[in-house]
């Protein structure tokens, strides 16, 4: 029974964006659509427990949700301009695939609308598109449930008040709007990848980012950056099992057991990167995926194609100047040209990254390679690190006398 409930939960979560996407178009707002979806889930539970999951769960849930919405309107005797639309849409159930995809896309673009703050976009996307409960989101982001609930309520209110259009952006507007959607997925992934505090990794967020990324590939199959991001997620996901040692302590890329990287997941990354290249992609996610691919296919840390990585970092910096990117580029400089050149590349960054623990961790590493005393840098990094896994890694380095 437990197992079946889990399966049903998975089905509901998986189908939610498809069903709610259509309902928002019919009912006019996200709240009403979510409520109708919840009612459909309540109706589905006893019926599916007894008779199994229907062959097309999305169609079943859509029909049940529409029936509920229509009954609710009748009860309330609401004479609303939306009512005729609902009846009309009821008849044409097997909708065209493009219409379903457009509904899903409208939902994604609305939840990731730049008029909302990034945190709000993330919470709303996880709630409405990914089908998480506010409690689950709160736990994943280590925030009080009340905060997340308020964030979502405010977001829905902003959408209503500012009349944010429920639509797929026009071609001219698409790159900017898409960047906003990809930023949300990237943030979800990064939160799962390394948390700012507390336990080192939370798989559910990573898996969700992976699922959202794949979903976007199917919805926007000709956008190279979508495939770049998905590829980047896959390469990183492939290393999950090797990111920490048996004591739960962080392992650097150079220390990881590469034979345990997940090969089918790396293949997924390579295939998606291939699609991004074929589509002529050279945006920031594609470039980051290119760098990740160099790591994923290198047999050893030293045997990595550092010259290629350096080239991609140069392109990335030209595209989006960022001190964190410059910091990562310095690693490639160190590996390709030597630690002295690496240190030189760090000089200009200290003022910009004075509160970033990885800056000091990296400078410590370069100094250690040159045989210099690096303990002050490790200590500084330790003071700034928020994550226990990272802190104990740094402590280990200090104890080892570097």
């Amino acid at each position: 029974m437990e197992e079946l409930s889990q399966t049903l939960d998975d089905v509901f979560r998986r189908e939610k964006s498809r069903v709610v996407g259509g309902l928002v178009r019919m009912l006019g707002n996200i709240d009403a659509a979510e409520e109708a979806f919840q009612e459909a889930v309540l109706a589905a539970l006893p019926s599916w427990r007894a008779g199994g999951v229907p062959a097309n769960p999305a169609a079943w849930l859509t029909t049940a949700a529409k029936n509920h919405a229509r009954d609710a309107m009748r009860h309330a005797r609401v004479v609303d301009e939306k009512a005729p639309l609902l009846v009309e849409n009821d008849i044409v159930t097997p909708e065209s695939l493009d219409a379903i995809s457009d509904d899903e896309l409208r939902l994604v673009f609305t939840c990731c609308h730049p008029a909302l703050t990034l945190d709000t976009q993330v919470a709303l996307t996880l709630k409405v598109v990914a089908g998480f409960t506010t409690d689950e989101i709160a736990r994943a982001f280590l925030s009080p449930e009340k905060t997340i609930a308020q964030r979502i309520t405010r977001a829905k209110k902003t959408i209503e008040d500012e009349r944010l259009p429920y639509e797929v952006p026009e071609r001219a507007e698409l790159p900017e709007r898409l960047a906003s959607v990809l930023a949300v997925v990237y943030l979800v992934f990064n939160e799962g990848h390394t948390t700012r505090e507390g336990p080192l990794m939370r798989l559910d967020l990573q898996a969700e980012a992976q699922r959202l990324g794949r979903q976007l590939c199917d919805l926007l199959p000709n956008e190279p950056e979508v495939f770049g991001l998905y590829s980047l997620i896959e390469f990183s996901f492939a290393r999950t099992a090797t990111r920490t040692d048996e004591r739960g302590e962080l392992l650097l890329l150079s220390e990881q057991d590469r034979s345990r990287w997940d090969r089918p997941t790396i293949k997924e990354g390579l295939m998606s990167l291939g699609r991004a290249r074929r589509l002529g992609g050279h945006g920031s996610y594609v470039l980051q995926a290119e760098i990740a691919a160099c790591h994923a296919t290198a047999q050893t840390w030293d045997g990595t194609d550092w010259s290629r990585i350096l080239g991609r970092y140069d392109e990335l910096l030209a595209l989006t100047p960022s001190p964190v990117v410059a910091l990562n580029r310095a690693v490639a400089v160190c590996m390709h040209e030597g630690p002295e050149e690496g240190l030189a590349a760090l000089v200009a960054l200290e003022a910009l990254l004075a509160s970033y623990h990885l800056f000091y961790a990296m400078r410590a590493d370069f100094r250690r390679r040159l045989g210099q005393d690096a303990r002050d840098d490790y200590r500084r990094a330790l003071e700034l690190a928020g994550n226990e896994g990272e802190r104990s890694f740094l402590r280990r380095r200090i104890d080892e006398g570097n």
Partner: protein
Amino acid sequence: MPQFMVMILENEAEGLKLAPSETQALVEGHSAYEQKLRAGSAFLDGERLRPSSEGRRVSSREGQPRVDAGPFGDKVLSGYYVLEAEGLGAAVKLADECPMLPGAELDVRPLMKGRHQPDKASQQGRVFAYAVLGNAPSEQGWIDVMDRFDESTRERFPADRFLGGLRLLEPGRGRRVAPAGGRRAVFDGPFLESKEVIGGLFFMRMTSLEEAVDWARRSEFVRHGGVEIRELWRS
């Protein structure tokens, strides 16, 4: 000019043995092979199929539709190319350069008819290949099965989902390229072994695997034989 389908039949376990750099070489090898075919004006279509462990076979058993989950054994369709060539010999020669996993085989089969829709990866939704499987003791019997498929399914594909389909001539009209003594050798047909033989491929886009299977269960394909449903890689 005659057209041919080159089907790549691989043991998926061999793919898991590859180091990531070797997988990368294979992925890039396919891009290079496709470019070469295009440069020689021989390329018509080509796709890679996702692992059979994600696939389904839909058939009938005692009049009831039956769905089996993958993986599907050690010779699995992992991709195909459709080429134009002067004749079977020329097609086999082109096929011989196709990159593939160690131990893999290629079936080169003349096309009977059909509609190509290249670049299926650019379509919204999840795109699935349906391999039509027929089982018969003789080649004529197999042709009869495929004719029945053809008649009962013609014009019955939902227009906004259908992404083309190709019917192949009987296996005896093709060639198999297989490893023998450390190199590749060409063998004659027929290949009507005990197992089901692919009679054609068609393509549909769906919202999910469940929907793809549901469509097949209700289709005429289940009445005469079966289909293997496999999602395409977007590459």
